[in-house]
Every structure is written in C-alpha cells, then in structure tokens.
C-alpha cells in the first residue's frame, strides 16, 4: 500500500511487458536501435546436472516514464527458491517509447532438471515472468530409434 501511495504521488505509470524472452544472443543495430534476437529458447537439455548455462535475458517495456527500480529473481519453481537476484534502476524520459533490456548473466545455475523462471518486478510490483524447462538428455536409443525410422 505504501508503494501504491508513493507511485500515486510520483504519478508513475505501471510498466507494460511487451516481450520477455530467453535467447543465446541479442544484437542491437546502433544506427536504427533495432534488436535482433538469436537462438530464442524455452528449453535447456543437458547430459548432466548441475550445470551453469550462458543465456541472454531480453525484455521490452512500454508505458513507463520517470524513475523505476527493477528487480529480477531467478527462481527454481519446484522449490520456489531464489537462486540469484539482480537489482537495477533506470529513468525513462518518454512514455510513448518502448524500452529494451538485454541482460547477460555470466552464468545461470541449473542445479537439476525441472522448471526455472525469471521474474521481473518494478517498484515492488510484479510485472511478469519467463520460464524455461531443463531436461536431462536421454540416451541415443530413445532419441534415435533406428527401428522406427526404418519402418
């Protein structure tokens, strides 16, 4: 409630989440400001766990103006535990623009197969999430069943 009151006093708008994606790489073309996302995924497959995974977190916001404090929680869904957390703040000068963010954590820990998600919060309010699934790679017999291919 206190945060709501402060937002009202500051005349802050609530962010609208235009996109929230995980990918291998996000490239910004400096001349145009356009973003290109390479290798968008929602699944990580590995032979063994735990692993540390490289990834880029991309999100795009609209309906923002003024100063915002952001928080991203990286959460293991099964345990509902935060595996890491990042905070940052930013000023937005123009409400009619959309703003892109590219986050590159050096490593994203994946302790076991299961569901994981990044949760975005702005000024203490929940904005949205992006989930991915970590799977253990099955044996070759399962993935490449030669009998079913032949027949």
């Amino acid at each position, binding site marked *: 409630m206190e945060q709501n009151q402060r937002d009202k006093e500051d005349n802050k708008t609530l962010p609208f989440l235009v996109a929230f994606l995980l990918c291998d790489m996000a490239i910004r073309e400096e001349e145009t400001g356009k973003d290109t996302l390479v290798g968008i995924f929602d699944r990580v497959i590995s032979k063994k766990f735990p692993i540390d995974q490289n990834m880029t977190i991309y999100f795009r916001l609209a309906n923002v103006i003024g100063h915002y404090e952001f928080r991203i*929680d990286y959460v293991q869904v099964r345990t509902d535990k935060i595996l890491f957390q*990042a905070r*940052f703040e930013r000023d937005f000068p123009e409400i009619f623009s959309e703003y892109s963010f590219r986050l590159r954590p050096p490593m994203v820990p994946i302790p076991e197969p299961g569901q994981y998600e990044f949760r975005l919060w702005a000024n203490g*309010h929940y904005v*949205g999430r992006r989930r991915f699934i970590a799977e253990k790679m099955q044996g070759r017999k399962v993935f490449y069943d030669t009998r079913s291919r032949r027949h």
Partner: protein
Amino acid sequence: MIPDLGDIKFTPDQEKFLSETKKSITFSIDIEPESFEIQQATPQGFTISTLLDDRLILQMPLEVEIERENETYIAKCGVFEEFGYGDDPMTSVIDLQQTLAELYWTLKEEQNRLGPYLIRIWNRLQEVILER
C-alpha cells in the same frame, strides 16, 4: 528513435560485478549479498502491474494473495473477488490476470444489463483498468 539503453551485465560475484560496473556506461546492477542465501521466491502477498492482455493497462497495482490447497496454488484478488489457479504460484497469478481481463471484457459487453453488484464491480474495474 528508441533510446539505446545498452547492455545490462550482472554476476553473482560481487567483486567481479563491481569491476564490470566501472566499465559499464549505461546501467549498474547491484546483486543483493543475501541473495546467495536461499530465499523464498513468492511472497504471500504482493501487487501485480499487468493483466497479460495487450489491450489493457492497469492504472494502479492490484493486490494479490497466494494460498495453497494441497497441490494447487490459488491467487486471490480480494477487490474483485476473483481467483486464479495453478500448479505453482506464478501460474495461478497468470490465471488470475487472464480471469480479470475476461471479466473486464464480459462486463463491458454486458454493462447495460448488469445488476447492482456487477455494476459496482464494473465501476471499480473502470477505475483500475485503462484500454490502450
């Protein structure tokens, strides 16, 4: 033209992060030192800022309470007496967001045929929700 906000870099290594920050020209991100201790991710009560319908914008945050019944999570929005259900907390929140958006469009369509209770809900929805 959309302003270039640049990359955000962060790391669980606080010392390494600080050196990265010096190089950064756009953003600084602080990693909470206590974040490496295990924390419960979903608070029992919090506020949401969107309804997951790109035609609708919330003008003020909505308070949500999370409860668990056996294997099902329930997200409650007391103001509108609406609920969302899911296998995990944030899935129940998504269900609640979609339910509220559906409620908005349904009541908008039926606004001339609503009883007193639903008129009150519709009026409250209009105070909170703005069409883009």
